């Protein structure tokens, strides 16, 4: 069942009747259900479908090389707005946008400026991580605090920088132990790294290591069951929802779903913020601590967090981006 317009080569069976707003999404090499970025973005799109009946769809390319064809698949099938949900897709998005000036594209977690048919959403991870650092430092009893990163790349370094700054703010003398696992998807390596840190006397670990980070939770839970008290600070989403409250101190979240939802809605309403970089920090409610933080973090601490949040928003404090 081909489209009526002629230019569309979509072979999907759904309607191509015209009125309906179509949003597509291309994941990075993970899956759409990665409990992280891709999933969050997809949830935003699903909400759009539920709220306004938009036609939403996604593709999961299997290799870097497949990214462009996947984007094009959407572009050519008349999709109104196509999202790419990772920084690694930036080059492909730029290319496609240049070659298809009529197409509208969006990218999450990257800054592409000045191209009229691309909107970028990026986050000030360092600001969120700063707050996580405040919590970690306030809650640590050993004054030894851990950070585990996936790979030593700029985004992750932003996490590290913000976190370290936050910790120093509260406890300038606290020891911060840093470990880069080298991978985003090896749970066992994350677990071993966490084990090493906890053994070393660390009692709070903040991670920005994707799936590798799951190992940190597993290690903490194991210790919890054995009667030890250790904390993990989750990342990207509220990880206490997955790993429970026994070990999850709080999570530094990135509100990808909201961002995608809002920008898509603007586009549908004809107000596509093309060419702009929507930079979301604490002020824009793009990053922050999870709502469930109050379960394990005492009110006094949260109050401190709140005060720093205001200082950052007001510009009184600038959080570094480099560790």
């Amino acid at each position, binding site marked *: 069942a081909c489209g009526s317009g002629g230019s569309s080569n979509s072979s999907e069976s759904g309607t191509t009747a015209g009125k309906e707003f179509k949003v597509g999404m291309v994941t990075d090499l993970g899956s759409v259900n990665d409990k992280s970025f891709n999933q969050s973005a997809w949830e935003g799109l699903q909400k759009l479908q539920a709220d306004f009946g938009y036609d939403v769809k996604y593709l999961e390319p299997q290799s870097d090389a497949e990214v462009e064809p996947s984007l094009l698949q959407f572009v050519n099938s008349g999709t109104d707005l196509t999202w790419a949900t990772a920084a690694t897709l930036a080059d492909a998005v730029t290319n496609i946008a240049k070659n298809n000036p009529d197409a509208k594209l969006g990218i999450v977690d990257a800054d592409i400026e000045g191209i009229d048919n691309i909107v970028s959403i990026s986050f000030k991870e360092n600001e969120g991580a700063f707050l996580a650092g405040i919590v970690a430092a306030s809650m640590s009893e050993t004054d030894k605090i851990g950070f585990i990163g996936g790979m030593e790349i700029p985004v992750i370094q932003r996490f590290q920088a913000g976190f370290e700054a936050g910790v120093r703010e509260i406890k300038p003398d606290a020891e911060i132990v840093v470990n880069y696992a080298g991978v985003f998807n090896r749970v066992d390596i994350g677990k071993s790294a966490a084990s090493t840190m906890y053994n070393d006397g660390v009692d709070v670990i903040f991670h920005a290591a994707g799936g590798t980070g*799951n190992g940190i939770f597993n290690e903490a839970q194991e210790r919890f069951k054995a009667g030890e008290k250790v904390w993990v600070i989750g990342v990207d989403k509220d990880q206490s929802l997955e790993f429970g409250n026994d070990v999850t101190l709080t999570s530094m979240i990135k509100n990808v779903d909201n961002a995608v939802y809002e920008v898509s809605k603007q586009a549908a309403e004809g107000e596509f913020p093309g060419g702009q970089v929507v930079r979301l920090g604490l002020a824009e409610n793009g990053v922050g601590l999870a709502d469930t933080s109050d379960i394990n973090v005492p009110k006094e601490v949260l109050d401190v967090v709140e005060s720093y949040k205001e200082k950052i928003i007001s510009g009184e404090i600038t959080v570094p981006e480099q560790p």
Partner: protein
Amino acid sequence: MVANIISGSLIFATALLFGALGGMLSERAGVTNLGVEGFMISGAFFSAIGANFAESMGMGGFSPWIGLLSAFVFTSLFSGMHALATLKYKADHVISGVVINLLAANFTFFLVKLLFDGAADTPRLRNMFAKVNIPVLSDIPFIGDALFRSYPTTYLAFILVFAIGFYFFRTPAGLRLRGVGENPGSIDTAGINVMKIKFWAVMLSGSISSLGGATIVLTTNGNFSFNTIAGQGFIAIAAVILGRWNPYGVMMGALLFGFAQSIKDQIQILDFASAIPTEFFYMLPYIVTLLALIFTGRKTRGPKALGVHYDASVR
């Protein structure tokens, strides 16, 4: 810290050890096993499914054992394919192994999507294996921490090493199995069914390797996703070769990897570590292995009839 390294090495080594012991078993019977990765993927998948099911049946702390068992049993789907292809239909062993890897990966990922509504991983297990302290022994200073506070699977893997060692070198069946890998003609003319031995070796091989995958899910990961097993099967094969197809050697090979892997974390928390590129630590396990081979290496001789199809009428 040394105790930590040893204990960490044991834990990293466990999954590899299962994978490698399985691989070794089939190779000792003359069937090349490049499918260890696939068997481990299968083991990881079925253990997650099995443990999940057991949890939903309310088996609580017992469910990891069900997971282990499921891995062992259901991986025979794949080992059966390897046996069928290599033994009955005389497919090239290497090709069959490659197929097992491809098929296990795609099949399990597909099933995960199918069973869990498009999810990329299986639901998180609430009950995983907990470390078991061996009474008395675990209280010995240093050694206790290093060796006797570990997961049941770790104990199991090391018990298996000795069990297979006993089987190989002390029992009639082991003698025959080793004979099959060296010179099946000799076994055949001694009136023993070569194909039967090979068949069971391949079947068990898959099941034992699968425990490696299960270990990863049931002790560290807590669920199965498409990158739960990412190349560990190939490292396990390296351990088989490094250990020269001998259960104790294979154990040392797996421990070497475990050691190199866990020492990385220990070094990384030291102060001077920041002066060295992180990537160097990631390379460490692989460099250590190469160096180990260079210094212990020389000729590694596998079973003589490895990878050769046995056919009584061909000389």
